[in-house]
């Protein structure tokens, strides 16, 4: 059976039920409490979601969809946002900027969206930022990680409608360096994606690690173009350089391929310390299963076993029951986005963009991934995601994080104004 159809139909069903419930409820139950005082929120709250649903990375879109749908269903079942039903529409925005912009404009100008969320590629996020500024709608980015979005577009150019709920490249570059500084490794090499994400994270890793551990050397770089299916030539480059540590932000399906091919080449026997900043993504862990070697450093934008809180455990249990999957990081960020909108609208007492922006800036959100704070200056959510060493666990058919290291967000997130001394880690006040 086609997965889209089921989810879409389920979603429609859920929508109809909640619509009926609100229609009935409004006659019988009087709005109480906070919402009674907010008559200026009218009609359904419409959220337009932009993600990739075709091509090689369409699986990410599916994970976005699961999280977002579940969030909306829960919120609607509990009475919606400020008593209003939430409507969600998801559109295939591919990985290209024009499709993303067209969909955003459709959502706002034609469908009447109050909020926008999603966005997978950094290029899309950067292209979309000025557009949402013009459209004057809040955009919550749930996947694209480029630090330029929050540092340049939000902080420097003042596009205040843009927020980001997932960790940016700081997690991949800076936090990795904090983990790497305590490893007995003096020479590092990389196989990184041949695009901005790869260049940026590797530079961040080099800068921060260079400051944390002077004398460490970076001996080889091999850049893999988007869509690489044969990493053997890159693995050769790295093995010729004989580094002690390997760092790679290759992600999604390509990481599965890289790990399998590196294993066949005996790379993990020769290089003892390997870091995959996006290795804790569910598609990678599930795709590799037992083939993921032990004792690899992995991280992500969220890992379903962290934090060990009731909120998270319940979320994971419900998600697993609903979709028969463990939540991927984009599922969590999409899910929490719905709650972030709910909290902000209810706090603002309005769904007007200006007021919601004010409510969101500086807002704290208790989410499955833990306690998030949307930093006022750059609208970046501050929260922790662990780095951990892979190990097998009989409870799961894939590797999970064994030993974990959690670095506080304020220690490795770049700080405003993002230029000059004291804006890049390590910070003096944190030791």
């Amino acid at each position, binding site marked *: 059976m086609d997965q*889209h159809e089921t989810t879409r139909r389920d979603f429609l069903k859920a929508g109809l039920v909640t619509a009926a419930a609100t229609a009935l409820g409004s006659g019988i139950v009087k709005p109480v409490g906070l919402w009674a005082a907010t008559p200026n929120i009218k009609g359904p709250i419409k959220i337009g979601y932009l993600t990739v649903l075709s091509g090689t990375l369409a699986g990410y879109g599916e994970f976005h969809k699961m999280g977002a749908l579940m969030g909306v269903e829960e919120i609607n079942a509990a009475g919606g946002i400020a008593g209003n039903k939430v409507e969600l529409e998801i*559109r*295939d925005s591919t990985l290209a*900027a024009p499709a993303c912009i067209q969909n955003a*404009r459709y959502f*706002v*100008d034609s469908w009447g969206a109050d909020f926008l969320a999603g966005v997978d590629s950094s290029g899309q996020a*950067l292209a979309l930022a*000025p557009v949402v500024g013009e459209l004057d709608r809040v955009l919550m980015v749930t996947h694209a990680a480029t630090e330029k979005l929050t540092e340049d577009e939000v902080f420097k150019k003042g596009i205040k409608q843009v927020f980001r709920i997932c960790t940016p490249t700081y997690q991949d570059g800076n936090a990795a360096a904090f983990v790497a500084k305590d490893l007995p490794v003096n020479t590092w090499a990389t196989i990184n994606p041949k695009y*901005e994400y790869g260049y940026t994270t590797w530079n961040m890793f080099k800068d921060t690690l260079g400051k944390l551990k002077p004398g460490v050397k970076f001996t080889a770089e091999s850049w893999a173009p988007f869509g690489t299916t044969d990493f053997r030539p890159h693995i050769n480059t790295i093995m010729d350089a004989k580094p002690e540590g390997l760092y790679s932000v290759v992600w999604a399906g390509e990481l599965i391929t890289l790990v399998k091919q590196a294993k066949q080449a005996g790379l993990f026997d020769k290089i003892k310390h390997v870091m995959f900043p996006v290795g804790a993504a569910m598609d990678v862990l599930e795709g590799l299963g037992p083939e993921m070697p032990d004792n690899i450093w992995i991280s992500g934008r969220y890992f379903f076993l962290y934090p060990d809180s009731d909120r998270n455990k319940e979320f994971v249990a419900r998600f697993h029951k609903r979709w028969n999957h463990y939540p991927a990081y984009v599922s969590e960020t999409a899910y929490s986005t719905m709650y972030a909108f709910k909290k902000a609208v209810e706090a603002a007492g309005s769904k007007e963009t200006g007021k919601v922006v004010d409510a969101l800036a500086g807002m704290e959100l208790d989410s499955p991934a833990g306690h998030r704070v949307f930093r006022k200056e750059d609208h970046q959510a501050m929260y922790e995601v662990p780095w951990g060493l892979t190990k097998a666990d009989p409870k799961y058919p894939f590797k999970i994080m064994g030993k974990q290291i959690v670095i506080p967000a304020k220690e490795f997130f770049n700080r405003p104004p993002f230029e000059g001394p004291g804006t890049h880690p390590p910070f003096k006040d944190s030791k």
Partner: protein
Amino acid sequence: MNQYWKYFLMLGCLGALVGIGFVSGPFVLYLATRIMILCIFALGYNLLLGRTGLLSFGHAAFFAIGAYGLAITSIHISAHPLLGILIGVTAAALLSLCIGFFCVRHTEIYFAMLTLAFGMMVFALIWNLRSITGGDDGLYGISRTAISLGIVNIPIRKDYQFYYFVLLFFVASVFLIHRIYSSPFGLALAGIRENHIRAEFAGLSVKAYRLGVFTVSGAFAGLAGSLSALLESNVAPFSAHWSHSAEPVLVSLIGGLQTFSGPLVGSIVFVALREVLQRFTYNWMFWFGVLLLAIIIGFRGGIVGSISDAFRKYSRP
């Protein structure tokens, strides 16, 4: 009689286009602007494909150069949109002249493959020259500043203002390309398509004409690229990818290769179809493919070609 109808139809279309700017919501305006830009791209392209019979997979490169030309001008030199467009179009024309010089030695599949190779080399360059092009992030935040003409400043920032700005270029392009079709140059191109050996023996330098039309269509691709950079406020390397070159091919074939207005109708169908399909299904690619098959097999002369054939058949007996 026929002529009057044509003028009437043209005036009606023009009136409708002007009217859209007054009455439409912003999304329709945006789509209409996009369709007009695609029209410029496809009309120019069809000079090459439909008129001269050459299939190029490299025109995305010229589109991208036009867009990057405008973006780089606007970031580093001057945000004057007309200057950006001028530089974008000139750059695209020069590049197509250079690439065309090599490509017009061949025809058919060899020409298609050669343009594919050169186009992808441009794509690789754009992807790798990060300091100039911004790599895969592209260049973003291109602003639509007012056009200053000495004393008056014409704003194009708002959607409807920009719509009229593009409409102006659209009408000019349609007019220009229509003139090219009925000009000696245009006739020579048709002759080359029909029979290039005969054309050579009629005294035409076939290579020179092919290079000429390649450059002209490259310039129009560049114009479309510049306008699209202004519309979307960004430019990304995928605009140079070969799959983007397939867009004007699709549009021309949908509308009809051998007709002047084919690309116009094709652009509308292409953009509208995708937009409408997306409202009903996540599997829009599947249905788009099916409809394409139906058009290729059912309407061999494209939509315009088939309709006018049918009309002719109907009216004759």
